[in-house]
């Protein structure tokens, strides 16, 4: 699959939105959005894609802006329910933290794990460069 056309769009979105990653902050892009109706702009999709590490193409920005707008509008219906005094449920069945004995167990063999890696060097995962000139 040819993904190279995606980069300019993503980079353009980054320029518009800035590179802050300390926290997820929608204030910079949400002027046109309204949580109660789920309105979402093309720039907002670009920002979401950047946060989610998706190098979406220009065509996808158009497609997803329309679709996410409809979906967010539909799911915003949860706001119709009066639930101020209702506690949230994260798991349906009550859960408590589970402890187990602190015992040494054999891990997966190193070669079995590295065999699945996209790139390996010196018995380790090899990754692309992390630091950039921009930093």
């Amino acid at each position: 699959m040819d993904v190279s056309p995606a980069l300019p769009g993503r980079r353009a979105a980054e320029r518009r939105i800035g590179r802050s990653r300390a926290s997820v902050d929608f204030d910079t892009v949400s002027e046109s959005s309204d949580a109660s109706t789920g309105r979402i702009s093309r720039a907002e999709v670009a920002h979401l894609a950047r946060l989610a590490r998706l190098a979406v193409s220009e065509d996808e920005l158009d497609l997803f802006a329309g679709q996410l707008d409809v979906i967010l509008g539909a799911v915003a219906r949860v706001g119709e329910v009066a639930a101020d005094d209702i506690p949230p449920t994260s798991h349906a069945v009550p859960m408590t933290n589970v402890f187990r004995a602190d015992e040494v167990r054999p891990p997966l063999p190193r070669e079995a794990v590295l065999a699945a890696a996209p790139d390996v060097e010196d018995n380790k995962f090899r990754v692309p460069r992390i630091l950039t000139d921009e930093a």
Partner: protein
Amino acid sequence: MSDLTRLSASEIAGLVASGAASAVEVAQAHLDRIEAVDSALHAFLHVDTEGALDAARAVDKQRANGDALGQLAGVPLAMKDVVVTKDLPTTAGSKILEGWRPPYDATITRRIKQAGIVMLGKTNMDEFAMGSSTENSAFGPTHNPWDLNRIPGGSSGGSSAAVAGYQAPLAIGTDTGGSIRQPAAVTGIVGHKPTYGGVSRYGLIAFSSSLDQAGPFARTVFDAALLHEVIGGHDECDSTSIGAPTPPIVAAAREGARGDLSGVRVGVVRELGGEGYQPGVLASFQAAVETLRGLGAEVIEVSCPHFEYALPAYYLIAPSECSSNLARFDAVRYGLRVGDDGANSLEDVMSLTREAGFGPEVKRRVMIGTYALSSGYYDAYYGQAQKVRTLIARDFATAFEKTDVLVAPTTPFVAFDIGERAADPMAMYVNDLCTLPASLAGTPAISVPCGLSEGLPVGLQVMAPALADDRCYRVAAAFEAATEPVLAAIPELSG
């Protein structure tokens, strides 16, 4: 000998145990069936011919040695490709995992192997289990054996098609919002979503961790109970696994098959029916309720007013959890890596890889989840959805004060045409209307065939309180015993 692929799992196990058929013969008959029809169905992403025959030979050897055999020893099974299998390709229907061979077995894989069940291969699915039609697979759709132009349900559509298409008598599916029950309904087979925590999630590629639950597909309720018993029970590798033993589901299926539901209170959920449901589906459902009444059940109408918010709550909670879970696909430790040309940064490579490796539905959900979890939106979306989840659980609790089980159609409509809803995400999401409440409440629910509409299968959903999976099996088995087998009407696939 009659065609081995037409037998139930328990019949096959009986033949293997008695020596009337070898496990190798059984496995070969199913592998031949797959060879003959899978070009039409595309139920499988990977067929493990050698592994299946090796497992079958091991069962035959155990029997020859006089060793005790498991209740399903020698019975073939199709495994959904979201369950990791050591050294066997596991993709979850995604290009990002194409070619990956996991270094370990999921707990349910290990239990299936230990039971002497013969794994035939890995079945097709919506990418990362996100979908209701199996059209979201990166490797092409699966076709419904009832009508090859139609969807087999999803996300476990490869597993449902394999069982309905006589490629395997048993299959494993996973159900996050209905992905076992809905495919079972639209292919005319049985599928059960266990109580959340009843079956280990260790080794299931995670979609929505507070909802994901693996469970059985089979052509009979009793077979489904036998498979559930093999995979169920506590697992220390899953911290959300329930400590209590699996409820007596096999006994409940036997009890139900006697056809007496005297004293059982069946609640019909008012909110799951009416406008938007196909008339044929509603007619089949009404007839099913009358059948239950005829078996001695007391039928009560109940109201669950918050069920109408299950769909919006689910389509916030599941995407939120998936946006977090799918962060692990970072092009570092396993799977695809794209754009690593020495110039691109790690972040660029991650973004290019995820762009190339994920399909559109996965991207949509990851972005919806990212949005719903963001500061400023969290309370209005994710937080509110979790409160709705509480209200849905309370609706169930209130309904179960005066009923033993609740019933509803499993799906609002029968299998639709491939492509019919693919372009409209919301049109796809309404497939899950009837299955979502039990997902959000973590309660068990089974789908059992209850007739035909427009010549296509309709499912009856039986829901029970948490940890009372046995009630689902009892009522479903009684219903099954009182009705003609739906699958008998399936057209013959040309081989």
